[in-house]
């Protein structure tokens, strides 16, 4: 014993054995599983990061596809509208042309009618004028026909008849 704290004895091998046992136990039951877990977590996080990156890329692709489709749809809609406009224009001009034709036809037939009516009117007027003139002539004749004139007329008539033969 004594006051000197620096004395070596069999405590050294005892401590060495104890410590090695501690190292063995802790390695087996604590550090190995712990490090395995840490490694596992590392790989987990790594794979999650990769996965996230993949998903991000997928999302990017899908987004691009959607944008493309959207663009296409818009284009198609515009095409449809343009086509519809064109069709309607054509249709309108067709309708217009048909209307024109119709009106032209109506106008023509109206003109024909007018012509015919006018002709009839003229004929009627002519007939009436003839009747009237005969009447007028009769009246005048009745008033003014004296004997001499009658004789002349008869002569003339006879002459005319003779000429015809």
């Amino acid at each position, binding site marked *: 014993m004594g*006051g000197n*704290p620096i004395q070596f*004895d*069999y*405590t050294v091998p005892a401590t*060495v054995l104890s410590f090695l046992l501690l*190292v063995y136990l*802790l390695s087996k039951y604590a*550090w190995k*599983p712990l490090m395995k877990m840490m490694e596992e977590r590392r790989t987990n996080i790594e794979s999650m990061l990769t996965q996230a990156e993949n998903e991000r890329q997928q999302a990017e692709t899908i987004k691009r596809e959607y944008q493309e489709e959207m663009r296409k749809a818009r284009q198609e809609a515009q095409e449809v509208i343009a086509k519809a406009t064109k069709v309607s224009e054509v249709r309108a001009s067709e309708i217009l042309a048909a209307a024109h034709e119709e009106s032209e036809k109506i106008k023509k037939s109206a003109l024909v009618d007018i012509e015919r009516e006018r002709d009839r009117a003229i004929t009627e007027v002519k007939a009436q004028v003839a009747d009237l003139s005969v009447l007028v002539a009769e009246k005048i004749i009745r008033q003014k026909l004296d004997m001499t004139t009658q004789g002349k007329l008869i002569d003339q008539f006879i002459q005319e008849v003779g000429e015809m033969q």
Partner: protein
Amino acid sequence: MIKEVHETVLWHLGSMTFHGKTLVMTWISMAAVMVFVLLGVRNLTSGKPGKMQNVLEWIVDFVRGIINDNMDYEKGRPLLSYLVTLFMFVFFSNMLGLIPNFTFGLLHDVHFAQLGHIFATPGMMSPTADINTTMSLALLTIFLVLYLGIKAKGLHYFHHFVEPFKVFAIIHLIDLLAKPMTLAFRLFGNIFAGEILLGVILMLPGIWVLPGILPTTIWLAFSIFVGAIQSYVFVVLTTAYVSQAVSESH
């Protein structure tokens, strides 16, 4: 004086003697480390770790950092378990001397393994306050250096003893012996001195007990600091010695 605050209890087994108090304290430290670590690995998960697991992972990462700073990590990987255990054991040992003796004299009359004697002091004792413990750890370190050196380079490892000239073998031999000596005595000196001073403060007589609280507190805080630093230094030096032995630059 030293004998008063630092009594050695001897166990006799045949012709062999053991420092009983040191060994008991060593085993208490080991049990504490075991409990602490096993609590941490109880519910191991690779997902979100619990508090204790987090602490352990922090310690492992810390030691891994030390290895990384000193050598190629792949070469040092087998060392990791040993070094983490070493770090925790030395730290817990250093702390053990700062804990008061909570047996309240219950073991006073226990004669088995002189436990009554062992737990007679007002505080516990750091196993690292005994040169036997620190020397054991230092010897393990140096065996590790030799073993890993030979494992890494084969018999070529011994070649560096005779470089650059054969005469240098003497210096290399002294170097090889000095390494465990410095390791052991540095740790022992720091912790032993801390405990002696703590014991001395606790022996303050009568009226000085109350004013003694302040220096005790300060010294305890400082001892915690020293204990942490010394455990760190021990692990760093072990790593450095091993990295010297396994590196290619000789």
